[in-house]
């Protein structure tokens, strides 16, 4: 796999952030909307998603001596700096580099988990997770089941940067959650924010099943909010209703949640349409009850994600919503997703499920 230096990684992220007038610069397609941290979680600090993730890892390394974190370039702090300073703090027996080999990272991670270590394996870019697919799908996912619960690798968490960054093209932009959602035995989630990222990771670390956390990399720096400084968990498997509404449900995850939120604001103000925005949060298992209750209430639904539309996770949602909510529907459930092309470079603005495409879809669904 192509190595990405820290400098390049920083460039990958920073170019997306500068919404200046430079004509060749891409601007961000979304505006991050921070949340308030629940009061019961105590003191907070302004933190971006990268540092929130680092905080989760730091807390886990401190509370569980068996915890190890590893992957390519993890030792010096990671190409996105999510492990910055952790090797100095915990030593290179716990925070370490592996050779450049994703199948090795996954396989080694499974074995460490089987032997009882809390194991955090980083795959540098979700686009490079595929060499590890066999280990994840054929081994990790099936470990407990095939052994009749004699063995399991529940202590394994795989975390990987994913999704569009503005100019990442084919191999630095993918959102591969659907491939893994199709495998019984895995848990998969996608945080939309620093608070979510830290809480979901801390849940994943303690969850007794192999978990994959896909972290939208554009949010590492662009997403900043008041994050609880201590330990807390956000439950896996529960969707989050971010905005209540009556006319339509809009369902998404990751970066795209912020596009959905923005669209909900626009159509309410300009067209008087009331949209209920839901962050699915967990792809596997997903919160069918919350989603279907919402669609039954509103009667309309748009599902939106960055991954290509065909067989993207939206297909599963659309199918289930249609069958569960059929008699409550006022319009066919719709999907606004990435196109069925490899993730393009110069054409990214047209490939993406933009707020304009969403607004168009909202109008079409209301008119149906």
């Amino acid at each position, binding site marked *: 796999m192509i190595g990405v230096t820290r400098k390049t990684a920083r460039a990958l992220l920073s170019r997306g952030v500068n919404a200046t007038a430079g004509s060749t610069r891409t601007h961000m397609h979304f505006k991050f909307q921070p949340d308030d941290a629940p009061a019961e979680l105590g003191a907070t600090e302004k933190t971006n998603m990268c540092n929130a993730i680092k905080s989760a890892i730091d807390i886990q390394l401190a509370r569980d001596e068996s915890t190890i974190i590893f992957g390519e370039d993890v030792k010096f702090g990671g190409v996105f700096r999510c492990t910055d300073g952790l090797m100095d703090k915990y030593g290179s027996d716990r925070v370490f580099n592996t050779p450049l080999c994703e199948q*090795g990272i996954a*396989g*080694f*991670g499974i074995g460490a988990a089987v032997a009882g270590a809390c194991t955090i394996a980083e795959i540098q870019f979700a686009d490079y997770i595929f060499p590890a697919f*066999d280990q994840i799908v*054929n*081994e990790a996912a099936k470990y*407990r089941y*095939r052994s009749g619960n004699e*063995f399991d690798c529940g202590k394994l968490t795989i975390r990987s940067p994913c999704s569009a960054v503005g100019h990442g093209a084919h191999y630095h932009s993918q959102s591969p959650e659907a491939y893994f959602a199709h495998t019984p035995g895995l848990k998969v989630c996608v945080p939309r924010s620093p608070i979510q990222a830290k809480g979901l990771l801390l849940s994943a670390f303690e969850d007794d099943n192999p978990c994959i956390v896909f972290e939208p990399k554009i949010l590492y720096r662009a997403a900043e909010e008041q994050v609880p400084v201590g330990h807390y968990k956000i439950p896996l498997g529960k969707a989050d209703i971010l905005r209540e509404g009556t006319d339509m449900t809009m369902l998404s995850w990751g970066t795209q949640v912020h596009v959905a939120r923005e669209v909900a604001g626009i159509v309410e103000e300009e067209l008087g349409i009331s949209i209920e925005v839901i962050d699915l949060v967990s792809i596997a298992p997903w919160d069918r009850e919350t989603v279907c209750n919402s669609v039954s209430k509103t009667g309309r639904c748009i599902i939106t994600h960055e991954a290509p539309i065909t067989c993207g996770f939206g297909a599963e949602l659309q199918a289930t919503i249609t069958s569960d909510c059929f008699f409550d529907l006022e319009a066919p459930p719709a999907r606004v997703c990435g196109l069925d092309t490899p993730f393009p470079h110069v054409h990214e603005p047209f490939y993406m499920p933009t707020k304009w495409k969403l607004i168009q879809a909202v109008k079409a669904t209301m008119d149906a």
Partner: protein
Amino acid sequence: MLTRGLRKVVRPLVTSVPRSDKFHPSTQSEFINELHMIDPMEIERLPVYRVMDRSGKILRENQDPKFTKDQAIKMYKAMIKTNEFDRVMYDAQRQGRVSFYMTNYGEEAAQIGSIAALNPDDLVYAQYREAGVIFYRGFTYQQACDQCYGNVDDKGSGRQMPVHYGSRELDYVTISSPLTTQLPQAAGSAFALRRAGEKRVVMCYFGEGSASEGDAHAAFNFAATLNCPVIFFCRNNGFAISTPVEDQYTGDGIASRAPGYGMMTIRVDGNDLMAVFNATVKAREIALSENRPILIEAITYRQGHHSTSDDSSRYRSIDEVNMWQKTDHPISRFRQYMMAQGWWSMEEDAALQKSLKKDVLTALVTAEKKKKPSIDSMFEDVYDVPTPELERQKAELMEHLKQYGKHYNLDQYSQ
């Protein structure tokens, strides 16, 4: 890995170029000024370590592992136990009583010699042709038959095909069908055990065909760079189903790859129980005291078919198989040694085989009568706790069976 011959050519040509470690930080190599491509044929093939000759006579006294009579008999019985189980179960499959089976013929010493050299709690990862290993550890015929039948007493809960044994109690990780996946896992487990301060080595069995998979390369490299106390034990038995070794690799087998990873290695006569034993004892000692991996390549021969789905006469001659059986069978080599010590006789051999055969048949018949795990157990263990979706699917299936149950063999399954 230069041969002495090559060194003679190289040395006079080295000129006094100042060595710059900064420029080549990763190498301790000398500079030479003559262009020379190293042909692998210049490098000596790794020798095969052997203790006994083919008639069970120890060739060098200082290599005698000095087994006690009890130790020798324990290992010998384990080989026969495996062999008898194979014979009965192979036939059982042919009669349609079991869906599938894989024998261990010809590899009994590679299996028993190695596992006998380890501690009972050393963690074992295996491929599929290591039944002798789990039998030696204490897996019973009943447990093995229960797994092959996938009945209520199968530790694996009826989830996998026959011979996919596993036992937490015996520190033998459950087998999976995908090849080689266990190798990097073994490295990871060794790392975790080392960090936890446990003086346990991880033993990882695999075949020479399996060594071609990318996971093997990954495992060797990870184990060596990350100081993992793991023994990679390769059963080079000449075949991967129908694929002979000449189609599997063109280098000097598997052992020769280890130095490329910075890993220690030895090639042993896999049909020589003593050689396998000695090498494994040493490997364990080095792995644990130095926190490093070792590769052992055991040269042996797969005397049986790949599995009950294979007929090996389609790709190799029966004469070849008979030749190995007659001249280099691991069981007879060790038996000859034991008989020369006065520890065993052909009468005891016949009696043991007869009694074990009876034991297998008893276990088989018992296993056959047991029910399969309950239908709703199918939904357990996907996760630690079933998800709402799994609960829903289970309820739907149960509803379906209430109406259509007569079309399924429900009485085969426990309630």
